[in-house]
């Protein structure tokens, strides 16, 4: 990726002028209004309900709303990891450097989104109580920072990362065709997925267990019922109108396991689904 050319693009941004970002999309739309209908009609995907689906409070083309939603989630994650690495005795020495990497990424995502949004960026102190989050989520979680409860901290980290992946995925259609913003959002999205994978590996190693896997199995494989809502729908076995349970694995000459069907695809969450998951911590 040429970061410099992206930054040049971003410097030119007037966030209200979404269309400026997507010359290619405009060109495609303008040139092919007839042809695209023909192409769509010939596709085997089941589209109807998906095309009409509302993607939460943020709406298609609302670049600022989408980016501010992302920024609020990054503020949360950033504060979470900054608190963690500043809490002596919480993270074992052997793992500290890795959480410093993750914290640095979340801090960089905050700075990046703020730079893109400019004056439209939501201010951090609007979140929580004057910018301070409730890490117990209104008392539903133990105070893992105070008690240096590493296992619980990891469960929350696991949930934050997986939920972040789901949230970015759910927002992607809102910035469709927007080369700079969509590409940046997807590039954050996959970094969060890398984090999630690593944190799951940390949890597996800590528990000397085969679970959780680095990928999401079924609906809530975290071993913690309190975050089941964060994984709602991850047990989906139908994609784009294809019922995956009918597919045959040519290598085994048998149907795929349900486990594999759910692991192979991560599922999106809408704004309306994500907000109740993070508002107990103070995201507004």
């Amino acid at each position, binding site marked *: 990726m040429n970061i410099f050319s992206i930054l040049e693009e971003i410097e030119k941004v007037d966030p209200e002028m979404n269309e400026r970002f997507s010359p290619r999309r405009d060109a495609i739309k303008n040139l092919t209004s*007839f042809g695209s209908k023909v192409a769509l009609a010939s596709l085997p995907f089941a589209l109807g309900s998906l095309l009409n689906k509302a993607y939460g409070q943020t709406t298609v083309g609302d670049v600022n709303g989408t980016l501010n939603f992302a920024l609020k989630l990054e503020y949360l994650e950033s504060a979470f990891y900054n608190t963690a690495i500043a809490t002596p005795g919480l993270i074992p020495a052997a793992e500290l450097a890795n959480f410093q990497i993750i914290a640095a*990424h979340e801090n*960089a995502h905050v700075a990046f989104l703020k730079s893109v949004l400019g004056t439209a960026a939501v201010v951090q102190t609007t979140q929580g109580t004057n910018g301070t989050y409730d890490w117990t989520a209104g008392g539903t979680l133990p105070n893992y920072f105070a008690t240096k409860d590493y296992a619980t901290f990891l469960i929350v980290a696991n949930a934050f990362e997986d939920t972040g992946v789901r949230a970015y995925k759910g927002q992607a259609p809102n910035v469709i065709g927007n080369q700079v913003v969509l*590409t940046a959002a997807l*590039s954050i999205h*996959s*970094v969060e997925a890398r984090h999630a994978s690593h944190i799951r590996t940390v949890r597996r190693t800590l528990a000397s267990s085969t679970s959780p896997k680095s990928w999401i199995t079924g609906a809530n494989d975290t071993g913690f019922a309190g975050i089941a809502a964060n994984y709602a729908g991850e047990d989906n076995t139908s994609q784009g109108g294809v019922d995956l349970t009918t*597919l045959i694995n040519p290598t085994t000459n048998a149907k795929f396991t349900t486990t594999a069907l759910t692991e*192979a695809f*991560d599922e999106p969450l809408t704004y309306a689904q994500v907000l109740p998951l993070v508002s107990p911590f103070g995201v507004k």
Partner: protein
Amino acid sequence: MENLKKDDDLLVEESGTLDAKMERRSFLRYAGVGAAGVGMLAVAACKKHSDDSVTATAAIDVGGGDIGVLNYAYALEQLEAAFYIKVVASPYTGMTAAETQAFTDIRDHEILHREFLKAALGTSAIPSLGVNFSSIDFTSKAAVLAAAKGFEDTGVSAYNGVAYIMTNPAYLTLAGKIVSVEARHAAFIRDMISYGSFADTTVVDSTNALDLTRKPSQVLPIVAVYLTTSISANLLP
């Protein structure tokens, strides 16, 4: 088909000072040609211009627009699936039970991505591609992990680098559902190779913490070494 070919040639000649890819794409869309037709058309065009083209042999073109992106993804998933099928079928020396399970999981994920895309694309799907992994020593853990890391990181960068041209939100979401699983694989493999390298600065830029992106024109030369079927993405960036 004969008419289309003539028009296509005309268009290519006219597009010297314009964005040739966009011109051809818009023409193909207007003509209502499906992806399967696009591949044939590209071949026809190549034959016609074989004197000034380095890809005179009949490459399979993935096509343009959303279907082109999905066929491009289908090509990459075919390659990944074939690789992991071989990894599981001929395990490297010292593969543990946990590693066997993980590679079986990843194999099945990639086969599912392949089979899903094939089913979803239907008659628009490109053919099955031939693969050649003779450059990989499947008995060596280091060699297999290095190749796996390459496939996963390349896959992530490929999805991230082409998604912006998609116009259909349902297809974009489907690509998103797959790419984050590839990123999970990538981080897992990287941690196996060097613990803590799950998102190091070779794939995540140190300023903005964004994952690397690659355009199809950057990805295809990387994967070409493992393919015996020549593929092109002349209508993609």
